[in-house]
């Protein structure tokens, strides 16, 4: 158990992990289990116990992710959301992730009742053939009706997820996907290139990721099409209209602390990054935390750059100096000079950010910065 130090401001964000899914998607490497009613009920009991144990006051953002939170039956889902509700500040953001196949009117009513005000829907692809091939049990038509039902129920802060670079996808397919996604008219879109992670079915099947040139071409199309449609790419893979950013995810991207609860969840408290156990057995026995790692001045700076430079607006010079006691431009003078020959940075009077090219080569840039952290 990690206890807060008295004089520290407590985290403003809370993440809750629901590991259950009706089906396992082939690309997924998150902590997930096939839904089982008995275990799910026990899980919720223990999750509520874990929540209590943290003595969390009020937070600005709550995010219930998975797995598939909507795979839970209504009563279990409601128990969790009701327990979370009192922890949300006025004007706070309360997001629940949902899968097209099990988001229905009843669940949306429960969300409303519990104060949920943002829904993140996993659409992933708009090609039915592709959806089938990644083991998603819904069609794009289902997605269209779920999104409109969500809107009808009074939710206007909606995100949809899309994956590109799936095996066999062409640039034309991507264009169609983008047109279809835009037709949903939601304020937030997350688009990720397929990463074949260890632990996913794709990895075990030997599926390869797109080559760099194709991936870049796809990415450039995405950015230009979404910008044209009025979306701002505020983070490498995230697009928002009218500044309806994911406030919760911005906590991560600004490298701020947060609570993480549930099976396999990660948290960041009092300069300690921790990860909960991924073993359901241990979790149910209330052995929550699996690993802890105290950040060092070096790792903290590395994490800060890794996260903040993902944002199109980067970070404020002043914030960096306040947090690390050094001037970014002084500390990284040599790297900036060498990288800026190729215009990877775009430095304004107040902020440090990467250019479009820099964002696309972020890891390349980070490795160079890390040498000086």
């Amino acid at each position, binding site marked *: 158990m990690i206890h807060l130090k008295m004089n520290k401001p407590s985290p403003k964000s809370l993440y809750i992990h629901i590991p259950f899914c009706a089906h396992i998607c082939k690309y997924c490497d998150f902590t997930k289990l096939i839904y089982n009613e008995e275990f799910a009920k026990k899980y919720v009991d223990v999750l509520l116990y874990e929540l209590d144990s943290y003595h969390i006051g009020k937070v600005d953002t709550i995010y219930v992710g998975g797995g598939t939170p909507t795979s839970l039956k209504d009563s279990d889902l409601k128990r969790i959301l009701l327990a979370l509700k009192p922890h949300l500040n006025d004007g706070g953001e309360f997001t629940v992730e949902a899968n097209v196949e099990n988001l229905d009117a009843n669940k949306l009513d429960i969300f409303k009742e519990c104060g949920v005000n943002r829904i993140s829907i996993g659409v992933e692809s708009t090609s039915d053939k592709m959806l089938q091939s990644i083991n998603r049990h819904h069609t794009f038509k289902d997605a269209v009706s779920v999104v409109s039902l969500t809107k009808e129920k009074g939710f206007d802060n909606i995100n949809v997820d899309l994956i590109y670079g799936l095996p066999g996808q062409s640039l034309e397919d991507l264009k169609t996907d983008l047109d279809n996604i835009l037709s949903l008219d939601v304020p937030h879109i997350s688009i990720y290139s397929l*990463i074949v992670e260890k632990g996913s079915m794709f990895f075990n099947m030997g599926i390869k990721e797109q080559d760099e040139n194709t991936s870049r071409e796809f990415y450039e199309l995405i950015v230009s099409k979404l910008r044209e449609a009025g979306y701002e790419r505020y983070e490498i*893979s995230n697009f928002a209209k009218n500044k309806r950013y994911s406030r919760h995810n911005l906590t991560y991207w600004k490298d701020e602390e947060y609570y993480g609860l549930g099976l396999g969840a990660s948290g960041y408290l009092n300069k300690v990054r921790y990860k909960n156990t991924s073993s359901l057995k241990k979790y149910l026995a209330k052995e929550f935390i699996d690993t802890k790692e105290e950040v060092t001045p070096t790792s903290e700076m590395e994490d800060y750059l890794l996260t903040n430079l993902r944002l199109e607006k980067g970070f404020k010079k002043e914030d960096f100096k306040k947090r690390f006691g050094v001037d970014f431009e002084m500390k990284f003078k040599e790297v900036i000079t060498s990288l800026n020959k190729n215009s990877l940075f775009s430095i304004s009077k107040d902020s440090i950010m990467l250019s479009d090219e820099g964002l696309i080569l972020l890891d390349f840039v980070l490795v160079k910065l*890390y040498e000086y952290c």
Partner: protein
Amino acid sequence: MEIDQKYIRNFSIIAHIDHGKSTLADRILELTETISKREMKDQILDSMDLERERGITIKLNAVTLKYHAKDGHDYMFNLIDTPGHVDFSYEVSRSLAACEGCLLVVDATQGVEAQTLANVYLAVDNNLEIIPIINKVDLPSAMPELVKDEIEKRIGISCANACEVSAKTGQGVDEVLEMVVRDIPAPNGDYNAPLQALIFDSYYDSYRGVIILVRIKNGSVKVGDTIRLMAANHDYLVTEVGIRTPKELKKNELSAGEVGYIAAQIKDIKDVFPGETVTLATNPAKEALPGYKRMNPMVFCGLYPVDSKKYLDLKDALEKLSLNDASLTFEAETSQALGFGFRCGFLGLLHMDVVQERLEREYGLDLILTAPSVIYHVYLTKGEMIELDNPSKLPDLTTIREIQEPFVKASIMTPKEYVGPVMDLCQKKRGIYIDLEYFDDTRMIISYELPLSEIVYNFFDKLKSYTKGYASFDYEYSGYHAGNLSKMDILLNGEPIDALSTIVYRGNAYERGSIVVRKLKEIIPRQQFEVPVQAAINGKVIARADIKAVRKDVLAKCYGGDITRKRKLLEKQKEGKKRMKAIGSVEVPQEAFMTVLSIDDEE
């Protein structure tokens, strides 16, 4: 006070690599109760981490033991460990010169190997009493009788009294100790003669200066004496003498027959070299002891600090290392690509490897090594001859009449079923056939003259894979022969990189060139622009590969839980970068400079 030499035995253990030399030394240490079981680390004489990790002995190491023999007397044993690899035969001869006898360990499952022979000859040269020890007799595949027969027939040493032991279990080791007492002659120095002590090793201690390890042949030395290093003709005041058990144990005096250490505030490392004789300034010996035959380094490479600010640290470290590694030579050199560094000479590749690792571990240096080279004799049209140890320094082609390269005479012992493949390999390596003879019923000795550069290149690895590891190998320098040789340059982004130049045999230059550029393409990380890699001979490009520019390099997703994982991924890349050297606008990893070596020419 004079020590009765009757009760001293000075001996070494010699063996082929892996025949159990260090394990036997450990058992002896245990049985003489020099080291309690509690203190016992495996292979205690292998004091370098490197030695323990690789399971090989690199440096000789001496220890004094007390043994209570069955005749009722206490004996002082000085056991001097020796390395078993061909690269280090020089170290073996150093240990042997300090002894009266040696234990010859032969693996009962393997029999006599090429290295066994080489070491035995060294012992015979030093007039040592040799006691054969048949080790690993506890293994089911042991054939002690056959092995004894082989030793008698092939080496000519009687095995009537050979000990059968298992160093692993300790079986028979007590008998070995009795044989040491009975069969190895006691030293017979003259206590009253002027001091003559042979330096066989030394190391640096930041408080006491250079500590020298000596065998006192005649006379004695005590604290307060003024000693003289005879070749250097420098005098020093002795501050401490003692023996190593293996912990240092101070004594008042070391006298004839003993092995021990002397500290005399010797600050100038260059004064001390193995084979030097120590005497007393007040009553000097008339002549020095016969020193060692100096071993000339055979393999050279450039050694550069990754961080050019560390040049002086590297110099300091090389000086200290060479103190107890007499066969390591170094000389300042400059490379356009790598800056200031040293051209270093080694006995062989393993030696080179070991020096690199010691410099990195013991002195915390990050190094770049260039591809190893041998010494070429370059005859100029004007009649002059240049000894070339750095390929990039090859003079202009029009001024060269002929290039000669060093050859070695290699003896390869192999089971007869591999004779075909081994000869095949030797032919491929431009070998000149000398002889083929039966060693025993199942094994043959193949003799070839081979270019040393081919041995350096990948001969060992090839030999191992051609014979499933059954062949053993020894070589000695044989002379220079002219060859059809050229300098191959490697160009990065159009610029020749001097540190990557090598001398190649024209017959396979194209092949080697294309493999090198392909390898470099794999190793050199992509940059933001395309980088062509070319191999050229006499300005003519013979091979090319292009390192594609990096187009997209970003993690798709980054949420809370991912951060540590992604950071670790990036840190790994960062670690890799530490060993990179920026050459022009291209960052080149350390291993790139060795690619010319590590490539397989039969891909």
